[in-house]
């Protein structure tokens, strides 16, 4: 029995700071995905939503919220929450339902509206809350990304110019992407001129938060064939593994890693694509394009190594050689990545899959990776959540 499902529709509301309700972004993305698939909303029998925690109760029941907004038509609904991996969890729920024969066509959907300014912890003394504790002693969010970036500089000899190169590359990729929020061809000088946030990372090395919405129409291979889309890109793997003790990399909001005195030290990021490759029965050498979570420029380089696109420590060399540009050996973030989008948490993992869908269909225009056959995504969020999805055609 095949373990694959087909992606027959993809849609996105442009990322930005629009100040509208998340439901509107989701519905617009869903309508675009439905039109792309060439099917009717009533043909969808399962709605799999990614939750948002910032928009009250409708956000907690996002699957139902979108189904109601599109017009109740009796479909079953589900809502997933898994921080940055929420969209992949929603896709996994749809896949399980379809492969079990309990649904034929599913809408996978996520959208978010972000508050203005920084997210601040709630008031009051809360020494039992790890997030309150680390802020009290001065450990902010960019601290963690800066520690990873500086570690690369110390161990592999990466430079701040290398990190700036990631931004310049992704800005060039996203420049013509109509769904991207930031469409400007930034230069090395622009990055170097931006304010230092947490050494070695500057303002232009770290991603913003955005409003946005993304949707996919997925279905059984039989259904795809029935409607004349037998050649649609397929989901070949979805990995949402949790970390394995002892986790060796310091993670937000912790003040310490696990202690590895009785268990070997493990890398969570590396474990995510490993399971995806095993599930898809392919290896990193088969990958033609990757969409990774560049919360910081330096983190894109970490992901390249975790995806095994190169050996540990070699990512900056690949970047300098132009291998990760569109037209290079293994383009990374042809969409422009988070550098051009900013993070819209419940929509982002779905947006990565939308980009790969267009790439595998050869519909990406100026951003097209020639002959893309296999694409992989990667992301990681709080509380042991992360995902890696493989698409192939």
């Amino acid at each position, binding site marked *: 029995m095949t373990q694959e499902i087909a992606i027959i529709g993809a849609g996105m509301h442009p990322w930005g700071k629009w100040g509208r309700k998340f439901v509107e972004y989701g519905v617009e993305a869903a309508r675009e995905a439905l039109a792309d698939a060439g099917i009717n909303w009533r043909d969808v029998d399962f709605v799999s939503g990614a939750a948002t925690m910032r928009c009250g109760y409708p956000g907690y029941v996002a699957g139902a919220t979108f189904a109601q907004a599109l017009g109740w038509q009796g479909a079953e609904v589900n809502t997933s929450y898994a921080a940055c991996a929420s969209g992949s969890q929603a896709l996994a729920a749809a896949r399980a339902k379809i492969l079990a024969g309990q649904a034929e066509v599913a809408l996978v959907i996520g959208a978010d509206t972000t508050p203005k300014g920084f997210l601040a912890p709630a008031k009051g003394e809360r020494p039992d809350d*790890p997030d309150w504790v680390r802020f*009290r002693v*001065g450990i902010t969010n960019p*601290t963690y990304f800066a520690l990873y970036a500086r570690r690369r500089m110390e161990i592999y000899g990466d430079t701040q110019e290398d990190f700036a190169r990631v931004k310049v590359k992704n800005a060039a990729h996203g420049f013509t992407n109509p769904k991207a929020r930031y469409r400007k061809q930034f230069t090395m000088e622009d990055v170097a001129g931006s304010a230092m946030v947490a050494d*070695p990372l500057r303002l232009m090395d770290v991603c913003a938060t955005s409003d946005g919405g993304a949707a996919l129409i997925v279905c059984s291979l039989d259904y795809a064939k029935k409607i004349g889309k037998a050649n649609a890109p397929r989901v070949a793997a979805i990995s949402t593994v949790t970390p394995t003790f002892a986790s060796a990399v*310091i993670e937000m909001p912790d*003040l310490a*890693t696990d*202690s590895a005195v*009785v268990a070997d030290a493990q890398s969570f990021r590396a474990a995510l694509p490993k399971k995806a490759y095993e599930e898809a029965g392919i290896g990193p050498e088969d990958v033609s394009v990757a969409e990774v979570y560049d919360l910081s420029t330096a983190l894109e380089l970490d992901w390249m190594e975790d995806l095994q696109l190169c050996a540990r420590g070699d990512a900056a060399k690949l970047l300098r050689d132009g291998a990760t540009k569109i037209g290079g050996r293994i383009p990374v973030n042809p969409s422009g990545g988070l550098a051009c989008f900013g993070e819209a948490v419940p929509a982002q993992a779905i947006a990565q899959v939308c980009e790969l869908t267009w790439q595998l269909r050869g519909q990406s225009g100026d951003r097209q990776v020639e002959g893309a056959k296999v694409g992989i995504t990667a992301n990681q969020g709080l509380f042991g959540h992360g995902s890696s999805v493989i698409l192939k055609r």
Partner: protein
Amino acid sequence: MSDELKPVLEGFFTTGDKPALLGSRCTKCGTYYFPKLEGFCRNPDCDCSQFESVELSRTGTLWSFTNACYKPPEPYVAAEPFEPYAIAAVELDKEKMVILGQVVAGVGVDQLKAGLPMELVVESIPDLVEPAGKLVWKWKPMTEGGAA
């Protein structure tokens, strides 16, 4: 003087000449935790729920470092005007874990390098209630030139 100041977090560290972070150690498998853990050991092969309170190693090696160039949000209380401070991630050899903390005042990222031996000290940071501030643990390079 610093002995009279209160700690910013109760039960997280000792003060005095040789301050140390206070952690837990599982009495069955020996895994360390910081901050202290109550409840259940997080080693998947251990079903223990008994912990002893232990002082963690006072020295380690620098794993990575950064600084805070912008005033952090509350509940951090920043000096006015804000002065950037460095942050260290220090690897403890015996406990095989990495622990974060600010770096002592006067030491910036340009004086730090991965692998430097680091020592735990206590220093005051500003507080909303206590005019003289409260004590917090910080990391200090043990080599000359890096020392404040």
